[in-house]
């Protein structure tokens, strides 16, 4: 099944099973079904459960918070991940406060497609989810193709705390992998924590390097993984988190087989997601850690520039070889 279908099916089921679920956002109803078509078809079956909005990200996010306070379960779609910049106040200064200062359970998910590699340019390609990481009362999650994105969405909605759910534009069209043997030489295991953690490694081999990542980077790392194996005979493992702001460090440490870890994210490295992850791994397990992320420039539209700024297969591949060439 495709990633987008998994999300859409889950939205469908949630609407069907639970009367208090609503979907809110711009252009989500028929005939458009959302800029990336995630909600396509849903308004036909549930016309009064999809609340299409004017372009007012701040207020409709606030509206969703109010609905959640009143016991409903709104799922907000922010059309592009870049536009979460507009809802920072409503999430950080409102929703997150109600959650602990007022002790209110909020069933609220804000979904948004993040990331680049499509030539959309500086305001439509960013990975701004970092803004919400580590903010008490907000969880940031990100599905990927190594487990069911729908399940991540479902658990987010029933968590009882505001969740920012980061989807990836390029993942929408990708197939989700099933656990077990993949492509004959790899094996996928899914560890069922509150939010799943997946590991894709070479069948019956221990891994020389571990990649820790989330979201759309998984696909790029799969290419790196093959290239390493087929061109250099190097075994690697991809450990993909879905709870990216409150992951269980112990679980990750247990899953890491190698002494070398490369933390890979699409966002800017400096003060990025990987800063915390790398520090955790370094302090908890004294692993050899390196990082790859976007270079410190706004994301250009032109292909050669975009591919220079964002992490690529080649850059990760080379960084891996460099790590492996060094003593531990």
């Amino acid at each position, binding site marked *: 099944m495709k990633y987008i279908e998994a999300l859409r099916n889950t939205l469908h089921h949630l609407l069907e099973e639970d009367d208090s679920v609503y979907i809110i956002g711009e252009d989500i109803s028929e005939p458009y079904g959302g800029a990336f078509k995630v909600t396509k078809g849903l308004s036909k079956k549930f016309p009064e459960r999809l609340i299409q909005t*004017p372009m007012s990200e*701040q*207020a*409709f996010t*606030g509206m969703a918070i109010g609905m959640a*306070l009143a016991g409903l379960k709104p799922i907000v779609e922010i059309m592009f991940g870049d536009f979460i910049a507009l809802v920072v*106040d409503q999430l950080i*200064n409102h929703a997150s406060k*109600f959650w602990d200062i007022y002790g*209110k359970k909020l069933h609220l998910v804000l979904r948004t497609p993040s990331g680049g590699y499509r030539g959309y340019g500086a305001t439509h390609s960013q990975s701004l989810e970092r803004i919400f990481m580590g903010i008490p009362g907000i969880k940031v999650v990100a599905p990927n193709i190594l487990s069911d994105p729908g399940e991540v969405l479902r658990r987010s909605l029933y968590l009882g705390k505001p969740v920012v759910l980061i989807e990836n534009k390029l993942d929408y069209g990708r197939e989700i992998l099933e656990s077990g043997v993949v492509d004959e030489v790899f094996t996928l295991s899914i560890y069922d924590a509150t939010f799943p953690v997946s590991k894709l490694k070479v069948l019956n081999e221990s891994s020389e390097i571990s990649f820790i990542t989330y979201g759309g980077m998984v696909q790029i790392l799969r290419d790196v993984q093959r290239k390493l194996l087929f061109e250099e005979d190097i075994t690697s493992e991809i450990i993909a988190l879905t709870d990216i702001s409150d992951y269980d460090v112990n679980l990750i440490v247990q899953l890491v087989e190698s002494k070398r870890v490369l933390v890979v994210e699409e966002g800017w490295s400096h003060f990025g997601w990987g800063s915390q992850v790398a520090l955790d791994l370094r302090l908890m397990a004294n692993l050899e850690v390196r990082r790859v992320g976007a270079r410190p420039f706004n994301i250009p539209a032109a292909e050669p520039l975009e591919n220079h700024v964002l992490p690529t297969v080649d850059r990760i591949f080379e960084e891996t070889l460099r790590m492996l060439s060094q003593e531990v």
Partner: protein
Amino acid sequence: MDVDRTLYIRLYKKMFLIRVFEAKVEEMFRLGKLRGTTHGCIGQEAVAVGVLENVDLSRDYVTGTHRSHGHFLALTGKVFELISELMGKKTGIVRGKGGSQHLHYGNFYTNGITGGMIPVAVGLGMAKKLKGEEGVVISFLGDGGMNEGYVMEALNLAGVYKTPNIFVLENNCYAMSTITENFTSGKFDERVKGFGLEYHYLKALDVVEVYGFFKKIYERVRKERYPVFVEFETYRFCGHSKSDRREYVVKEWEDFWHANDPLEKCRSRIPAKVVEDVEKEIINFVEEEFRRVLAAPYPDPGEDLF
């Protein structure tokens, strides 16, 4: 006693309670017995009391602002719980975690971002509408808050979705030291109508008039379920916050409102003896509650953080 007089007395008690409470808070700050900050509503009591006398918190929602002691007291009369909250005591309505600006009690919510609760309030109204529940949402906001973009977006949403929201603008002329009309292009009434909302206006001089005026609006929205905007002209006699020396005030407005203090107006409708008894009782009550709070326990990080 006629109905009218009973009403004046009932409302006077609430207004007087709020004023005594706020004055006591100011005193406590001066004495260094309160941390944090606070925004008093001395002068504006007629709005809080007149409006909220209509409300039924068991089915309605109320959202407040940074200046919501009066709203809370008008709704609940819970002096002990409020002063506990201001003093950071465990007996506060949110166990001292919120302080003056972050109150929550039942269906009543405030927050410290000016106007930030207006989008949230539209969501509460939306929930009422979607669930087909009774009840409406009453939301206070200030003249300064009217220029915040998210407030304007929210007014549009209320109009688009026809939610049962009543927006109550307490136009007290100032946003901190800023004379709002000098920093507002156009007029609020035209703006509100530009959002397709029904607009009402009243100068809040007489609490019973406020009460009656709001009652009609309230009943209509309860029944007909569409958003309405009510602007009250009012005035704050105290500083914006504890440290404000009020150097920016406009003399003409000061004079007018001091000559027309809604508390005095209400008072004048009640027999002197009754006033005397009522006031004494309230003053004693507030003093007593403050004393009780002094003895109340502080919250404990182990138990009360979440």
